[in-house]
Protein backbone atom coordinates (compact mmCIF):
# COMPACT_ATOMS: atom_id res chain seq x y z
CA UNK A 1 0.00 0.00 0.00
CA UNK A 2 1.51 3.31 -1.04
CA UNK A 3 1.37 6.45 1.05
CA UNK A 4 -1.51 8.93 0.88
CA UNK A 5 -1.41 12.39 2.42
CA UNK A 6 -4.05 15.05 2.97
CA UNK A 7 -3.92 18.05 5.25
CA UNK A 8 -6.27 20.40 7.06
CA UNK A 9 -5.83 23.55 9.07
CA UNK A 10 -6.48 23.69 12.81
CA UNK A 11 -5.72 27.28 13.74
CA UNK A 12 -2.01 27.91 13.36
CA UNK A 13 -1.34 24.18 13.02
CA UNK A 14 -1.53 22.09 9.86
CA UNK A 15 -2.60 18.53 10.56
CA UNK A 16 -1.26 16.12 7.95
CA UNK A 17 -3.20 12.86 7.72
CA UNK A 18 -0.98 10.09 6.42
CA UNK A 19 -2.03 6.55 5.52
CA UNK A 20 -0.08 3.63 4.11
CA UNK A 21 3.63 2.91 4.20
CA UNK A 22 6.47 5.41 4.51
CA UNK A 23 9.21 3.52 2.74
CA UNK A 24 12.02 4.00 0.26
CA UNK A 25 10.71 5.47 -2.98
CA UNK A 26 7.27 6.98 -3.43
CA UNK A 27 6.29 6.94 0.25
CA UNK A 28 9.25 8.84 1.59
CA UNK A 29 9.21 11.13 -1.48
CA UNK A 30 5.57 12.08 -0.84
CA UNK A 31 6.29 12.85 2.80
CA UNK A 32 9.18 15.08 1.76
CA UNK A 33 7.08 16.85 -0.87
CA UNK A 34 4.23 17.40 1.58
CA UNK A 35 6.40 18.91 4.31
CA UNK A 36 8.44 21.03 1.91
CA UNK A 37 5.21 22.27 0.30
CA UNK A 38 3.80 23.36 3.65
CA UNK A 39 7.01 25.18 4.49
CA UNK A 40 6.88 27.00 1.17
CA UNK A 41 3.37 28.11 2.11
CA UNK A 42 4.73 29.36 5.44
CA UNK A 43 2.88 26.61 7.33
CA UNK A 44 5.54 25.89 9.92
CA UNK A 45 3.50 24.28 12.69
CA UNK A 46 2.93 20.72 11.51
CA UNK A 47 1.28 17.76 13.21
CA UNK A 48 1.70 14.43 11.43
CA UNK A 49 -1.15 12.02 12.16
CA UNK A 50 0.34 8.55 11.75
CA UNK A 51 -2.71 6.59 12.93
CA UNK A 52 -3.03 4.85 9.58
CA UNK A 53 0.67 4.40 8.93
CA UNK A 54 1.40 0.78 9.69
CA UNK A 55 4.90 0.50 8.29
CA UNK A 56 8.01 2.67 8.18
CA UNK A 57 11.45 1.53 7.05
CA UNK A 58 14.81 3.22 7.58
CA UNK A 59 14.25 5.49 4.58
CA UNK A 60 10.93 6.58 6.07
CA UNK A 61 12.54 7.20 9.44
CA UNK A 62 15.20 9.26 7.68
CA UNK A 63 12.52 11.29 5.96
CA UNK A 64 10.75 11.98 9.25
CA UNK A 65 14.04 13.22 10.70
CA UNK A 66 14.75 15.26 7.58
CA UNK A 67 11.33 16.89 7.84
CA UNK A 68 11.83 17.57 11.53
CA UNK A 69 15.13 19.33 10.81
CA UNK A 70 13.73 21.31 7.85
CA UNK A 71 10.82 22.58 9.94
CA UNK A 72 13.01 23.39 12.93
CA UNK A 73 15.45 25.28 10.68
CA UNK A 74 12.57 27.58 9.77
CA UNK A 75 11.70 28.10 13.43
CA UNK A 76 8.70 25.82 13.13
CA UNK A 77 7.63 22.69 14.96
CA UNK A 78 6.89 19.20 13.67
CA UNK A 79 5.15 16.78 16.03
CA UNK A 80 3.67 13.30 15.77
CA UNK A 81 0.19 12.05 16.63
CA UNK A 82 -1.34 8.57 17.08
CA UNK A 83 1.55 6.19 16.50
CA UNK A 84 0.76 2.57 15.73
CA UNK A 85 2.55 -0.02 17.84
CA UNK A 86 5.05 -0.88 15.12
CA UNK A 87 5.94 2.75 14.50
CA UNK A 88 6.15 3.44 18.24
CA UNK A 89 8.49 0.45 18.70
CA UNK A 90 10.68 1.66 15.83
CA UNK A 91 10.98 5.15 17.28
CA UNK A 92 11.78 3.69 20.68
CA UNK A 93 14.58 1.37 19.58
CA UNK A 94 16.11 4.11 17.41
CA UNK A 95 15.85 6.55 20.34
CA UNK A 96 13.88 8.99 18.20
CA UNK A 97 11.18 9.00 20.84
CA UNK A 98 13.53 11.36 22.66
CA UNK A 99 13.65 13.67 19.64
CA UNK A 100 10.03 13.94 18.52
CA UNK A 101 7.14 15.24 20.57
CA UNK A 102 4.60 12.42 20.36
CA UNK A 103 0.92 12.69 21.29
CA UNK A 104 -2.02 10.32 21.55
CA UNK A 105 -4.65 13.07 21.75
CA UNK A 106 -5.13 15.65 19.01
CA UNK A 107 -6.43 18.40 21.28
CA UNK A 108 -3.44 18.10 23.58
CA UNK A 109 -1.13 18.04 20.58
CA UNK A 110 -2.67 21.18 19.07
CA UNK A 111 -2.41 23.07 22.36
CA UNK A 112 1.27 22.16 22.69
CA UNK A 113 2.36 24.28 19.73
CA UNK A 114 4.05 27.51 20.72
Amino acid sequence: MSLHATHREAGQVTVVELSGRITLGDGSALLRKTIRGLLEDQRKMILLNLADVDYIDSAGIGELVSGFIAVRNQSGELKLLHLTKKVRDLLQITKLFTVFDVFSDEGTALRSFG
Partner: protein
Amino acid sequence: MASDTKHLEITLETQVESVNLAEEMCLRVAEAAGFGEDECYRIGMSVREGVINAFHYGNQECPEKKIHLAVDLTADKMIIHVLDEGAGFKLADVPDPLAEENLLSTSGRGIFLMRAFMDEFNVVPGRTGGAEIVMSKKLPAPGGTSANGQGGQSAAPHQEA
Protein backbone atom coordinates in the same frame (compact mmCIF):
# COMPACT_ATOMS: atom_id res chain seq x y z
CA MET B 1 24.72 -27.54 2.14
CA ALA B 2 22.82 -30.14 4.18
CA SER B 3 20.42 -32.27 2.15
CA ASP B 4 17.44 -31.12 4.21
CA THR B 5 18.18 -27.47 3.50
CA LYS B 6 15.83 -25.73 1.11
CA HIS B 7 17.52 -23.09 -0.99
CA LEU B 8 16.02 -20.21 -2.94
CA GLU B 9 18.03 -17.68 -4.90
CA ILE B 10 17.15 -14.68 -7.01
CA THR B 11 19.14 -11.98 -8.78
CA LEU B 12 17.61 -8.52 -8.48
CA GLU B 13 18.08 -5.37 -10.48
CA THR B 14 19.52 -2.37 -8.69
CA GLN B 15 16.26 -0.46 -8.51
CA VAL B 16 13.80 0.61 -5.84
CA GLU B 17 11.23 -1.99 -6.92
CA SER B 18 13.64 -4.77 -5.94
CA VAL B 19 13.25 -3.81 -2.28
CA ASN B 20 9.53 -4.64 -2.25
CA LEU B 21 10.06 -7.75 -4.37
CA ALA B 22 12.69 -9.12 -1.99
CA GLU B 23 10.56 -8.35 1.04
CA GLU B 24 7.49 -10.05 -0.44
CA MET B 25 9.45 -13.12 -1.48
CA CYS B 26 11.02 -13.61 1.92
CA LEU B 27 7.75 -12.95 3.70
CA ARG B 28 6.15 -15.82 1.79
CA VAL B 29 9.01 -18.12 2.76
CA ALA B 30 8.79 -17.01 6.39
CA GLU B 31 5.05 -17.57 6.51
CA ALA B 32 5.41 -21.00 4.95
CA ALA B 33 8.10 -21.80 7.52
CA GLY B 34 5.63 -21.12 10.31
CA PHE B 35 6.77 -17.77 11.63
CA GLY B 36 4.09 -15.70 13.35
CA GLU B 37 2.99 -12.23 12.30
CA ASP B 38 5.47 -10.28 14.43
CA GLU B 39 8.44 -12.37 13.36
CA CYS B 40 7.40 -12.15 9.71
CA TYR B 41 7.35 -8.37 10.11
CA ARG B 42 10.88 -8.41 11.53
CA ILE B 43 12.17 -10.73 8.83
CA GLY B 44 10.51 -8.68 6.10
CA MET B 45 11.91 -5.45 7.50
CA SER B 46 15.40 -6.95 7.74
CA VAL B 47 15.33 -8.17 4.15
CA ARG B 48 14.08 -4.77 3.10
CA GLU B 49 16.92 -3.05 4.92
CA GLY B 50 19.48 -5.48 3.52
CA VAL B 51 18.38 -4.82 -0.03
CA ILE B 52 18.19 -1.05 0.56
CA ASN B 53 21.76 -1.26 1.83
CA ALA B 54 22.84 -3.15 -1.30
CA PHE B 55 20.90 -0.82 -3.60
CA HIS B 56 22.07 2.44 -2.11
CA TYR B 57 25.40 1.94 -0.33
CA GLY B 58 26.74 -1.20 -2.02
CA ASN B 59 25.81 -0.74 -5.66
CA GLN B 60 25.55 3.05 -5.38
CA GLU B 61 22.24 2.83 -7.28
CA CYS B 62 24.19 1.79 -10.38
CA PRO B 63 21.72 -0.06 -12.69
CA GLU B 64 24.45 -2.21 -14.25
CA LYS B 65 25.10 -3.90 -10.93
CA LYS B 66 23.00 -6.69 -9.43
CA ILE B 67 21.77 -7.63 -5.99
CA HIS B 68 21.91 -11.33 -5.13
CA LEU B 69 19.39 -12.57 -2.59
CA ALA B 70 19.43 -16.12 -1.24
CA VAL B 71 17.33 -17.83 1.42
CA ASP B 72 18.22 -21.11 3.11
CA LEU B 73 15.75 -22.96 5.26
CA THR B 74 17.62 -25.43 7.43
CA ALA B 75 16.18 -27.72 10.06
CA ASP B 76 16.32 -25.00 12.67
CA LYS B 77 16.63 -21.57 11.07
CA MET B 78 15.96 -19.31 8.13
CA ILE B 79 19.16 -17.81 6.77
CA ILE B 80 19.12 -14.82 4.43
CA HIS B 81 22.03 -13.65 2.30
CA VAL B 82 22.09 -10.28 0.54
CA LEU B 83 25.09 -9.74 -1.69
CA ASP B 84 25.94 -6.56 -3.58
CA GLU B 85 28.55 -5.73 -6.22
CA GLY B 86 30.04 -2.74 -4.46
CA ALA B 87 33.34 -2.22 -2.69
CA GLY B 88 32.38 -3.91 0.57
CA PHE B 89 32.47 -2.47 4.07
CA LYS B 90 33.36 -3.36 7.62
CA LEU B 91 30.74 -3.42 10.33
CA ALA B 92 33.17 -1.68 12.65
CA ASP B 93 33.14 1.34 10.32
CA VAL B 94 29.36 1.80 10.53
CA PRO B 95 28.46 4.71 12.84
CA ASP B 96 26.24 3.94 15.83
CA PRO B 97 22.85 5.53 15.04
CA LEU B 98 22.06 5.69 18.76
CA ALA B 99 25.04 7.91 19.52
CA GLU B 100 23.92 11.38 20.53
CA GLU B 101 25.67 13.01 17.59
CA ASN B 102 23.94 10.66 15.12
CA LEU B 103 20.38 10.78 16.43
CA LEU B 104 19.37 13.40 13.88
CA SER B 105 21.12 11.69 11.00
CA THR B 106 18.77 11.16 8.07
CA SER B 107 20.32 7.79 7.22
CA GLY B 108 22.35 4.96 8.70
CA ARG B 109 19.75 2.96 10.65
CA GLY B 110 19.39 -0.06 8.35
CA ILE B 111 22.21 -2.14 9.83
CA PHE B 112 20.97 -1.34 13.32
CA LEU B 113 17.45 -2.52 12.48
CA MET B 114 18.68 -5.78 10.95
CA ARG B 115 20.75 -6.46 14.04
CA ALA B 116 17.82 -5.67 16.29
CA PHE B 117 15.29 -7.78 14.40
CA MET B 118 17.29 -10.90 13.54
CA ASP B 119 18.85 -13.52 15.84
CA GLU B 120 22.20 -13.52 14.04
CA PHE B 121 23.71 -10.87 11.80
CA ASN B 122 27.06 -10.50 10.10
CA VAL B 123 28.68 -8.87 7.09
CA VAL B 124 31.35 -10.83 5.22
CA PRO B 125 33.32 -10.23 2.02
CA GLY B 126 31.22 -11.52 -0.88
CA ARG B 127 32.33 -13.50 -3.93
CA THR B 128 31.61 -10.44 -6.07
CA GLY B 129 34.01 -8.32 -4.05
CA GLY B 130 31.07 -6.57 -2.48
CA ALA B 131 29.53 -7.01 0.93
CA GLU B 132 27.44 -10.02 1.83
CA ILE B 133 24.94 -9.61 4.64
CA VAL B 134 24.17 -12.91 6.35
CA MET B 135 21.36 -12.95 8.88
CA SER B 136 19.23 -15.64 10.40
CA LYS B 137 16.19 -16.29 12.52
CA LYS B 138 15.53 -19.44 14.51
CA LEU B 139 12.48 -21.31 13.27
CA PRO B 140 9.49 -21.50 15.59
CA ALA B 141 9.07 -24.81 17.41
CA PRO B 142 6.96 -27.31 15.42
CA GLY B 143 3.31 -26.49 15.92
CA GLY B 144 4.52 -24.01 18.44
CA THR B 145 3.62 -20.52 17.60
CA SER B 146 3.52 -18.85 20.97
CA ALA B 147 0.34 -18.35 22.91
CA ASN B 148 -0.22 -14.96 21.33
CA GLY B 149 0.13 -16.51 17.88
CA GLN B 150 3.15 -14.36 17.15
CA GLY B 151 5.86 -16.99 16.87
CA GLY B 152 8.49 -18.19 19.26
CA GLN B 153 10.23 -14.92 20.06
CA SER B 154 9.29 -12.14 22.40
CA ALA B 155 7.06 -9.51 20.83
CA ALA B 156 9.40 -6.79 22.05
CA PRO B 157 12.13 -5.76 19.61
CA HIS B 158 15.61 -6.94 20.45
CA GLN B 159 17.73 -4.01 21.49
CA GLU B 160 21.40 -3.82 20.72
CA ALA B 161 23.81 -0.96 20.70
